[in-house]
């Protein structure tokens, strides 16, 4: 099949164009070697590949380096028939610098090239028009004006794309008299001739910045946004979580009602509904978190947040760019560690990667939520806007962040990691503020839920089944005299100083596979014990069973700090190329977590 590749600057509307062309029927593929995420989708008879956005073909950071390398590989491949270069029509000068580099590359490799002049709706809103025919003559390539948002010109563009895909040789950029002048000069000349005046376009952006980046307000708004983010995970998701819990409860009641009493019935109730079901309840929270991060990202606020954070983070040996991986680390550490590639400075990048695992990822959410439900009463303040559980939740997240910053300082002061590499400065482009398009956002939220379930469900299922068998036999449902209890008592001395009995010990140990397993494992264990009671409401079961406050707090702190995720260790090893760093972190954070839990159990 013939490939069409899509390139462009970040924030130029490339992803939305890709979505419009492929209709969201896409898959993210990891390519061999170092993973670079390339989205692939079908457009008519072609395969459309979305390359990561880069500002230039002369790379500065690791992510650009990898993307440019992939682009060069694609240029040498016979499968690549055509390149589509996405331009931001509101910022012609800046987009064309990259566009002209791509044009030269396409010409050098005899590949066809089409320019998609995106965001034309905004240009038109300012009452401006761009003569694409003239521009296309000046560029020596086809240019189509369109808007991926309002869909103006999209139909014509699709027709042209099909035609170009069939005969790409007609679209190889033509040489013209000015092709030898420096890229910057040409793009400046062209944007003067065709583009819209910079001050007109930037007026709204700059006046919003006057507010959001204000020396006093800026910081307050930033902190409030972060606080609201974490509050909303709790308060917005609650109705959805209740709904999921009700459905699972109903399902369990129906299933156990249909099955005759006995081993099979117990298995379905304890392992399936108690184990797997108790973790499904937390999927809505993951969706809310993804939604908010997506909103911040698409609106253009994240770049401002990086700017606001740069100076404060630099005291800890980090960069303002560390903020984005840190934030997305609250959804999952793995993409966050990859996102650290955008940090130009090798040393700051490494320190960022090493501390990302301390961000409370969504896998910890079920654990926190369960323990908070057990330990913290549901008290509301300020008319229900704030609640104590939400605040505790925020406190746990904050604890992770503070620990990460402390570890960063220590690493920065005491180690010489990557100190021999050249230090790169902080240079940031501030994109225009935009209202995000809801469709890709919803798609992203659903994908995050799907991926979370797909990744966690099989392992939780297996662990639940194994634990159930070990916990149920040999005396059918007598947990305290089961095989598991024998094993558990053997490891109990490790967890005794933390004030936890063997059931928690088992759940902690198995959760080194993946943290969410903790909830499933406890769900199964308590399910076996409370055989004839209701299965739903693991939190109430634990409350009834009794969990000491100190031990509970210790458990929470343990889960904030411990690096219980095999996939994260593997990713750190892949990105740093160092097994020592990866396993060193695993052991180091494990010991620190244990000490903290011990201290909490003694203090409270």
């Amino acid at each position: 099949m013939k490939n069409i590749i899509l390139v462009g600057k970040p924030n130029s509307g490339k992803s939305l164009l890709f979505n419009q062309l492929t209709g969201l029927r896409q898959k993210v593929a990891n390519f061999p070697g170092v993973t670079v995420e390339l989205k692939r989708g079908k457009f008519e008879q072609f395969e459309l590949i979305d390359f990561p956005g880069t500002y230039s073909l002369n790379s500065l950071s690791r992510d650009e380096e990898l993307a440019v390398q992939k682009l060069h590989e694609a240029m040498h491949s016979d499968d690549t028939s055509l390149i589509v270069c996405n331009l931001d029509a509101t910022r012609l000068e800046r987009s064309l610098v990259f566009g002209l580099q791509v044009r030269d590359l396409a010409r050098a490799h005899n590949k066809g090239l089409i320019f998609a002049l995106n965001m034309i709706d905004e240009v038109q809103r300012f009452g401006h028009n761009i003569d694409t025919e003239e521009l296309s003559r000046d560029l020596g390539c086809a240019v189509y004006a369109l808007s991926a948002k309002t869909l103006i010109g999209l139909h014509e563009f699709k027709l042209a794309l099909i035609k170009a895909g069939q005969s790409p040789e007609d679209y190889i950029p033509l040489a013209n008299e000015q092709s030898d002048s420096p890229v910057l000069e040409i793009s400046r000349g062209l944007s003067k001739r065709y583009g819209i005046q910079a001050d007109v376009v930037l007026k709204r952006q700059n006046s919003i910045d006057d507010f959001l980046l204000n020396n006093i307000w800026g910081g307050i708004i930033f902190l409030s946004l972060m606080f609201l983010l974490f509050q909303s995970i709790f308060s917005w998701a609650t109705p959805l979580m209740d709904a999921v819990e009700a459905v699972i409860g109903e399902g369990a009641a129906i299933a156990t009602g249909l099955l005759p009493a006995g081993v099979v019935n117990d298995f379905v109730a304890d392992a399936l509904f108690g184990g797997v079901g108790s973790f499904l309840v937390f999927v809505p929270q993951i969706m809310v978190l993804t939604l908010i991060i997506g909103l911040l990202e698409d609106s253009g606020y994240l770049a401002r947040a990086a700017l606001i954070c740069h100076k404060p983070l630099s005291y800890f040996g980090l960069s303002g760019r560390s903020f984005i991986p840190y934030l997305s680390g609250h959804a999952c550490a793995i993409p966050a560690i990859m996102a650290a590639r955008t940090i130009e400075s090798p040393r700051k990048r490494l320190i960022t990667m090493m501390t990302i695992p301390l961000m409370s990822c969504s896998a910890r959410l079920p654990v926190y939520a369960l323990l908070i439900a057990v330990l913290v009463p549901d008290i509301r303040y300020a008319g229900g806007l704030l609640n104590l559980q939400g605040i505790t939740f925020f406190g746990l997240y904050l604890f992770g962040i503070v620990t990460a910053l402390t570890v960063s300082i220590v690493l920065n002061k005491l180690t010489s990691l990557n100190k021999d590499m050249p230090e790169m400065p902080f240079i940031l482009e501030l994109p225009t503020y935009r209202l995000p398009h809801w469709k890709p956002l919803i798609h992203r939220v659903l994908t995050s839920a799907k991926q979370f379930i797909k990744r966690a469900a099989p392992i939780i299922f297996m662990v639940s089944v194994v634990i159930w068998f070990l916990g149920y036999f040999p005396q059918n449902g007598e947990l305290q005299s089961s095989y598991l209890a024998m094993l558990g008592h053997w490891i109990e001395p490790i967890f005794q100083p933390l004030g936890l009995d063997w059931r928690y010990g088992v759940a902690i140990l198995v959760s080194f596979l993946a943290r969410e397993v903790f909830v499933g494992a406890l769900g199964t264990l308590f399910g076996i014990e409370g055989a004839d009671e209701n299965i739903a409401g693991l939190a109430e079961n634990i409350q009834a069973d009794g969990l000491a406050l100190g031990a509970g707090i210790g458990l929470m702190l343990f889960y904030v700090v411990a690096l219980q995720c095999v996939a994260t260790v593997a990713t750190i090893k892949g990105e740093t190329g160092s097994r020592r760093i990866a396993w060193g972190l695993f052991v180091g954070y494990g010991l620190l977590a244990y000490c903290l839990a011990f201290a909490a159990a003694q203090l409270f």
Partner: protein
Amino acid sequence: MTLWEVRNKQSAHIESVDPTLLPAVFQRLNEMGFAAGQLIRCLRRSPMKGPLVLQLGDTVYSLEQSIASRINVHPA
């Protein structure tokens, strides 16, 4: 004077970019439009010597002190 010394809401023309910068950084600055004769306008100074925000051509950039102090300008 250097770009770092430009005050809030003031404009300046770029004179030169320190050629001893890392070649990759030098080239990137050039592609971003930091070239002799270009007009920049300082939009904002952050507290505690944080990055400055400036407009150059059709784009708004943020640069930290270590880089802004190596770009020479004269007031417009």
